């Protein structure tokens, strides 16, 4: 069993009731309900090696969370093959559950009115963590996440970021070998996002854990994951290195130039995306980048020139936009 996670042709379809608005429709729905099938996940396949950190990208409703829930045993797949650490997640065997964790950015396991430390101790009992390894883990997590005195304060008195740190720590006390993170940085400020990111990388390094994470923030993915899975409308659009994603989906580069006089017509060189105080942003086909750069330098009073890949956000947005068509 070489893979930590093995997924083949995984699908999850929901049947949902549909109801038109209005009184008449409300009465009709008493007798007859219109059903519609929603394909949340539609035949995706991938494998993840032990110790890998993989990012799961996709817009809202793409099927990321549904997939994570199937991987952690919270949802029964409609069809397909699923294997995590050699177990079938939907059986929810205790020995399986003891080796995984799922952190949901918007769902909490900490008890609101009592200090997080008490929930930690409850988890120690639930996961049957031996005392020594529990203590050393708490010490380690306290140091890595800078929990300090947070564990002694009632959870309701913690800030969102502090609470998230405690949530993550509570979810990792049993040293799970497979970690599923669903939007772990949602709603957090940049510093806190960074802190959590560094921590995830460190946890992965120290414990050799396999991590699968979804995030809205591209920075999370760019900083943590060499490999990304892009999912849209339940289908896997891309599986590979982040740089490969840029290669595959960007046909253009961005050239930013600063001219010493503020007016020039650059439409001959490429598509002008913005211009402000002599600073122009041009979008040019990738193959022509070198030629256009040469021309710009030769023909215009250029002070500064920068060639960039478009931001990943933009690339992803374009991928999804293409799919819509």
């Amino acid at each position, binding site marked *: 069993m070489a893979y930590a996670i093995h997924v083949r042709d995984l699908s999850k379809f*929901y049947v949902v009731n549909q109801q038109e608005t209005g009184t008449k429709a409300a009465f009709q729905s008493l007798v007859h309900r219109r059903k519609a099938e929603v394909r949340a996940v539609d035949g995706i396949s991938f494998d993840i090696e032990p110790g890998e950190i993989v990012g799961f990208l996709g817009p809202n409703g793409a099927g990321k969370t*549904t997939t994570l*829930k199937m991987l*952690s*045993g*919270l*949802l*029964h797949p409609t069809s397909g093959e699923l294997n995590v650490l050699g177990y079938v997640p*939907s059986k*929810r065997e*205790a*020995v399986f*559950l*003891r080796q*995984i*964790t*799922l952190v*949901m950015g918007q*769902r*909490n*396991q900490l*008890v609101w*009115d*009592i*200090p997080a430390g*008490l*929930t930690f*101790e*409850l988890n*120690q*009992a*639930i*996961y*049957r963590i031996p005392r020594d390894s529990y203590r050393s883990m708490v010490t380690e997590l306290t140091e890595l996440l800078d929990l300090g005195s947070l564990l002694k304060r*009632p959870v309701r008195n913690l800030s969102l970021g502090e609470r998230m740190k405690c949530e993550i720590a509570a979810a990792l006390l049993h040293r799970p070998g497979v970690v599923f993170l669903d939007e772990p940085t949602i709603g957090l400020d940049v510093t806190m996002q960074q802190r959590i990111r560094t921590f995830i990388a460190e946890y992965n390094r120290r414990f050799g854990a396999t991590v699968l994470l979804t995030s809205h923030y591209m920075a999370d993915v760019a900083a943590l994951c060499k490999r990304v899975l892009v999912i849209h409308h339940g289908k896997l659009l891309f599986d590979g290195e982040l740089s490969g994603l840029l290669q595959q989906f960007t046909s253009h580069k961005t050239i930013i130039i600063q001219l010493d006089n503020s007016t020039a017509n650059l439409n001959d060189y490429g598509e002008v995306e913005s211009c402000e105080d002599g600073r122009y942003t041009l979008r040019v086909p990738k193959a022509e980048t070198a030629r256009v750069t040469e021309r710009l330098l030769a023909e215009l009073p250029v002070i500064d020139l920068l060639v960039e890949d478009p931001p990943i956000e933009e690339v992803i947005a374009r991928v999804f936009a293409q799919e819509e068509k």
Partner: protein
Amino acid sequence: MKPLAQLYVQQFKTTLAMMFQYRASLLIWTIGQVLEPLVYLIVWSVVANSSGGSIGDYTTADFAAYFIVLMLVNQVTYTWIMYEFEHRVREGILSVALLKPVHPIHSDIADNISSKIITLPIMIAIAIIFSFAFHASVAPPPWAILVFIPVLLLAFLVRFVLEWTLAQAAFWMTRVSAINQSYFVAFLFLSGQIAPLTILPHPVQILSLLLPFRWLINFPVELLLGRLTMIETLIGLGAQCGWLIVSIILLRIVWRAGVKVYTAVGA
């Protein structure tokens, strides 16, 4: 068994910490637990007085004793799971529990026992005060006191498992308050909570023998009041054991089916 014991100890600490956070609501709950039997006690005492000092085989003092013991039995056996489960399912809180390698019922039992341990001394104190105030006296034979303890424990277990099972209606329905309400009404009449079953009409008494409720409240109460023969006690114990087995089987079936539904439609 040891890890489970640790879980119960830890849950006790958690519940204790939570209860001290919710002191006001704890107080209100306790008042509610006291008020309901107190109202019935007063009503029936008045009725008994106006009909010559007794109704059936219950004198005014007997009514007082009945409802004071009932208050304690109800305190030990009541659960709040039926109010809570719907919320857990609807808000997806259950997902967190399903990710844990332990059946969630353990946390609930431990939580229930913990809060009982904390509130029971207060209830006993209130019961003693009431006994003086209403001239209630209880004089059961020694064997009845001895049997009362396992009977009370069984009553707690059956009620817990039964209500935990019923609470799972939330897996299939988005609003379960209708079910809860019907259950509470049936419980109120057929368990002996509203009046001793022996003074109720004959058909109600027969019905109560066939349903579980009587064995959870009326039976332990009458046992401690010394109103039952040994044979009647044995029958009651048998009924409790039978209902325990039935309710555990039901719980397992319903839980398995419920989790399947939950994990099918979105946890």
